[in-house]
């Protein structure tokens, strides 16, 4: 309370003039971008109308990015089929990559020298050669191994035998190729996660009588997930777009479908936009999934889990509302 009985004293917040200038500059650029994206401009094409007997000619007004064409092709079956292939390749390649990555990471950390050297060599080879080369190799795998036989070398013992050319589709070969490449990158991510778990956790599990395998499955991997998930999310999103390389070997994915269409009608930019918008859409879904997955595996690591975007929006809105409702000021005692 101040001497005259006034409970609060007005607080003047610091004014950030530099920031205001920054906001104005950024706002100007944003307005220009919005204008160029969503407002019609005069094109080279001239259209003429006869208005009350007088012929009037003018440049046709069009969207710079031809949104009408984007909309026209957005849901065509060719694009949607391409999208499905892209999603299939991403999912299969990532599943192979993650399983392989964790296996190689565990092998790499094995006390057995042979296992750890094999793991190291695998990573060295698949990270060291371009993924495009690997993809080309796998698409021609049928030429190198027309028949695939698993057995003991130099003997007649065979376990499995199958004809590569007839039973392996080009798309499956691509998925395997991308997956094997991804395995090398995932193994380093998984290894980072595994070594981030405190040694004491492993000792505690061991002292309870857990075997190495149980310790890994029940204690190490669940805690490593916290470190593994963010870069893995990165890898999934990166893989989504890396799959566009398969169009080189003739698999028609999302980008391939767009390319096919624009090579016929020459609407290059709108079709690239169609493909990009689909990539963005899938990326958004994946990022959201990653957020909730991270939250799930953060259990116990944080005292309070981070708010979901909806919760955050709610508190933000409540904060803004309360700013308008209450007078600014703090109580000062005399």
């Amino acid at each position, binding site marked *: 309370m101040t001497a005259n009985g006034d409970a609060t004293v007005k607080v003047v917040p610091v004014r950030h003039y530099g920031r205001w200038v920054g906001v104005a500059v950024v706002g100007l650029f944003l307005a220009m971008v919005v204008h160029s994206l969503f407002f019609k401009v005069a094109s080279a094409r001239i259209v003429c109308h006869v208005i009350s007997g007088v012929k009037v000619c003018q440049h046709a007004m069009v969207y710079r990015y031809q949104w009408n064409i984007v909309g026209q092709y957005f849901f065509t079956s060719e694009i949607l089929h391409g999208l499905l292939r892209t999603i299939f390749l991403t999912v299969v390649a990532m599943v192979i990559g993650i399983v392989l990555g964790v296996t190689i990471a565990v092998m790499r950390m094995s006390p057995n020298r042979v296992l750890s050297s094999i793991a190291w060599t695998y990573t060295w080879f698949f990270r060291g050669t371009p993924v495009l080369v690997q993809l080309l190799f796998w698409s021609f795998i049928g030429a190198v191994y027309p028949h695939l036989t698993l057995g003991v070398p130099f003997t007649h013992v065979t376990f499995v035998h199958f004809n590569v050319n007839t039973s392996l589709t080009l798309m499956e070969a691509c998925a395997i190729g991308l997956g094997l490449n991804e395995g090398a990158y995932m193994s380093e991510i998984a290894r980072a996660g595994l070594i981030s778990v405190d040694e*004491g956790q492993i000792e505690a599990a061991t*002292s*309870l009588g857990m075997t*190495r395998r*149980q310790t890994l499955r*029940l204690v190490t991997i669940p805690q490593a997930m916290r470190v593994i998930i963010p870069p893995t999310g990165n890898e999934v999103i990166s893989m989504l777009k890396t799959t566009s390389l398969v169009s080189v070997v003739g698999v028609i994915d999302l980008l391939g479908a767009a390319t096919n269409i624009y090579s016929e009608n020459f609407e290059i930019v709108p079709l690239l936009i169609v493909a990009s918008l689909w990539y963005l859409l899938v990326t958004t879904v994946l990022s959201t999934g990653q957020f909730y997955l991270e939250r799930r*595996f953060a259990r116990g690591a944080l*005292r309070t889990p981070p708010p979901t975007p909806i919760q955050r929006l709610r508190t933000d809105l409540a904060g803004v509302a309360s700013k308008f409702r209450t007078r600014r000021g703090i109580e000062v005692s005399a």
Partner: protein
Amino acid sequence: MVKIHDVRKSYNGVEVLKGVDLNVDRGEVTCLIGPSGSGKSTLLRCINHLEKHDSGELRVDNELVGYEMRNGRLYELTDKRVCENRSRIGMVFQRFNLFQHLTVLENVTVGQRKVLGKNRDDATFKARELLARVGLKDKESSYPSQLSGGQQQRVAIARALAMDPKLMLFDEPTSALDPELVGEVLEVMKDLARSGMTMIVVTHEMGFAREVANSVYFLDGGVIEEYGDPRVILITPSSERLKNFLSKVL
């Protein structure tokens, strides 16, 4: 219960244990004291085979730790057998080492279910009983990070007890605690000692050693310098080194 004879252990050519002898009878509480680096923790970790000793004889419940004697040869035990033996020896660590991703209840049930193969209901029943015993009945759904150090250590004791151990090892259980939290952990340990549990405790709590221990071993430089009844050796130590050590910690 525990018989140790001439046990030696080196790390990278540095001998940490230089022939240690130690005997613990069933139901006895033994404290290991000594300056840091004297080999107390290493000795304790050898007893449940977290560390392999290089030579000497180490028996728990009359069975060799980590080896088996057959036809006059020592066979190293398979991992599975080592794990089986280890599950009956409880261990409590200086830094608690509770599983961070599991709740208190899950911490106490995971070993019972996955190692001993108990079903969920039996494991939960036993876990609740033990949590009540260490005074943490209402914390079963908390995560370790939400508990104080003293509470975490009491959960760690409950987790070890859930395996029905025949022997409990404590590796400086109160050294990482704030002073005002030491009491609650020592109280649980005293209660455990009164119930007849065989315990080997590495500690700097001389009060606890004097009050609870049946015998105290003083380790220095990898050898047992002196051992005996705590009421005798902690008050009238005969070796110069123990006198010196006690004058620093008391």
